[in-house]
């Protein structure tokens, strides 16, 4: 039985120690907001926070998070995440939406470590993949949430 904190509450799972955290979250605990995209840590759709920092849960054996605090997109009461979610709605960021949980968790981790990131900081931190191509809006929404000057808005006439 492996125990950890999930979004502030204790949880436990009777699973193999090498089952990736992603599948424990999705299949055992019913938290399907965290997505499976590649299973090799390349796309970032499975990004969650471990002790406040972004990790890729598809390559994280659940045993490695035992006794620690895990936060997912379903977390409530996180001011940074809430600010990002509001900015995401303001900029109408998602298209299909599949990668967006991971994007938001990566962005929340970035802002927690660097409350006012530059474009270069965003480039370096946001390595999650989006097939719909929402990147320009991801960047703009992070700036909005961080209250840093955003690049000029895309022109719409």
């Amino acid at each position: 039985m492996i125990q950890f904190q999930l979004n502030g509450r204790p949880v436990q799972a009777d699973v193999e120690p090498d089952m990736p955290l992603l599948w424990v979250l999705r299949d055992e605990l019913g938290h399907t907001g965290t997505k499976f995209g590649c299973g090799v840590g390349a796309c970032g759709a499975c990004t969650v926070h471990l002790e406040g920092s972004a990790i890729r849960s598809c390559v994280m054996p659940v045993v490695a998070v035992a006794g620690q605090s895990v936060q997912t997109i379903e977390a409530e009461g996180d001011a940074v995440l809430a600010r990002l979610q509001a900015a995401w709605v303001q900029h109408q960021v998602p298209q299909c939406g599949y990668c967006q949980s991971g994007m938001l968790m990566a962005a929340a981790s970035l802002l927690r470590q660097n409350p006012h990131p530059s474009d270069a900081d965003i480039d370096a931190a946001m390595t999650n993949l989006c097939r719909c191509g929402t990147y320009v809006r991801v960047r703009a929404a992070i700036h909005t949430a961080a209250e840093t000057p955003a690049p000029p808005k895309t022109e719409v006439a």
Partner: protein
Amino acid sequence: MSPHLKTGHLKSVASATPASDAGVNPSRRRFLLAGAALGGGLLVGCSAPTPEDRLGSPDVLPVREGHVSLNGWVRIATDGTVTVAVPRAEMGQGVFTALPLLLAEELDADWDDVRAEPAPVDRIYANQAMMLNALPFGVEEEGWLVRAGSAALERLGSVLSLQATGGSSSIRDAWGPLRVAGATARAMLVQVAAQRWQVEASACRTEAGRVIHPDGQRKLGYGELAADAAKLAPPEHVRLKDPKQFRLIGRAAPRQDIPAKVNGSAVFGIDVRVPGMVCASLIQAPVFGADVASFDGSEALKQRGVLQVLRIPHAVAVIADSWWRAKQARELVKVQWTATPHDAYTSQDLARAADEALREGFGMPYVMRGDAEGRIEQARKGGAVRAEEGAATKVSGPRVLEARYHAPHLAHAALEPINCTARVHEGRVELWVSTQVASLARWRAAQVAGVDTEQVTLHLPLVGGGFGRRLEVDMVEQAVRLAMQTQGKPVKMVWTREEDTQHDFYRPAAWADFRAALDEQGRVIAWHNRVAAQPPTNMATVRLLPWASSKLPDKSQIEGAFDVPYAIEHMKVQQLQLESPVPVGFWRSVGHSYNAFFTECFADELAHAEGADPVAWRLARLGSQPRHRAVLDEVARRSGWGTPLPAGHARGVALQGSFGSICAQVVEASLEGGEVRVHRVTCVIDCGVVVHPDTVVAQMQGSIVFALTAALFGEITVAQGRVQQSSLPDQPLLTLARTPKMDVHLMPSAHLPGGVGEPGVPPLAPALANALFALTGERLRSLPLRPKPKAGATAVS
């Protein structure tokens, strides 16, 4: 009469112009579809339903407590909530917002009260605009007309009731029916209010979900009127708004699907959880078409949670109580595969077949204007110039310019891996699937399970990326076959990323030969283009209907090549169809995705051969295409075309009409350490009346990223009969850090709505290749774009 005339006629059937359709006559207007004039008398005789025919009866919609349906598209609740049935898949292109917007506009609903829900499967929801786009118009040579007619017949039969999301057609299809449905419902609500007040209906107004008494004071909410309105017969005649009266169309409305997509609550196919569900992971035949000869699942069955090891066509499946356990256990299954005739097949085999076809094959002519071949032969006496890969071309005097272009197979790589959940129990099938083709999914499930389609219940979760991949129903067939062997337990089948890459229906690899005759001044007088590729629509049709012919003219293979907008006196464009074991399908923008690269780069070559500016060269040949001209003018102006750039930067331009819209892009690029950097993309689109502007901008932004990914990295190769690429690191996707700045401009337009999901894709690759030519003088004629390292330059790994 030419087929092009008929196409224009059909467009006016699918949805009349905003200016002319105020006051639609609903009295059973019928139009003959497709080829009424073919061969001077061959009548297809199939009538296209009008928007009024598609109003539908209220009982099409599922019953909800406290709601009444007024037709097949809208339900109104006693609290005033308006629910619009959306028969298209929400894939992030905003249909759950834009389609309700059309209905709400004519209903005069309060937008805050409007909700969207997936429509059931019914004939009224069939995608007529997409169907019309599939017809092989463009075939001009008399001899091909009859064959085109047969093709139209077959296609019509198979897709007439196709409830599908593709071909950038959702708005084009919904423009008529949803507005008529809204206006009809509004008229019924007004009539009830007028009766209650004992006033003339025509003296009442509507606003924000309420009918307003002629005194301007008394008001009745739609929720108070709907139950009585449902007892009325729909009016025979409704007047649609003049576009000047639009309150919702063309304005910003927040997308309805977004809130659930930022808090993890959005449910995609892969998130479906059904009580008693088991999970499946497959071992699929690595070689195309191979089947299971034998397998041994005994070791897998000893693993924790593993319940069954099953066989379905072309695959073995492990069934377990969790997907990860199923996936782990499949490593322990031993499978022997049958031999196939193409166990040694490689991409080079297809390249050789293409070369042979282009040298010797007979091409179906799609365009025959003037005498292109005669003029080219004449000019050849002045000497041919064959362009070498990478070399710039310069000619003087009457000459022939020749070039061969190539684009590879591509994967869709939607981020949600292919999945499907199915239950087969007591003669019924229940299906949960992220799909672009609801009606086909239901049909295929019924066919596989051997039940009537009425016995199939379909659930339509959100789609985590379609791009054409989810126009296929292979996953439905697999999941139903599994569920037929699990004693009534629901089965959720999920592919790995590796399977998703290796078992796709790929964008066809394509080759194009160009020959152009130039006059004394280097001006083009003749254009001959032959395109060799597998035909995607034919291939998809045969997968569904094995008796259908795979040899018919296939517009989707040649689109973007036969409809080049430039006035060139002599033009011939031919299609050559290749055969290959590699399955091909519809990849965002389909034939345009490679033909725009071919034609817009070759046009650039012709401009340079003449010594003309590429924008000026195009404008000079767009005299009869005012919309193309305006789009090109605008993109040149906004991009600062011709103005100085930082050292080492250059611009390229491309223009492509597709899916009813016209899009031009200017790309500013440089080379850094041998790597292509794209700094800025200026994008201008004329997509007719804009229904939801922010969605159009988002689609342009997304299309640029999608197309840039393909232009820089996209390539699927085959060796030993199997795809060589596997997970994402093998087929990189563009990252945020490499995303260029974008300036997107929507042309104000009163034309009928055009598509927006795809038209932003085709111009990017040629605009980038043309920029790289301007930068280096090296002409890149193959995708992905890989500039040769300069002699002495540092190699970049």
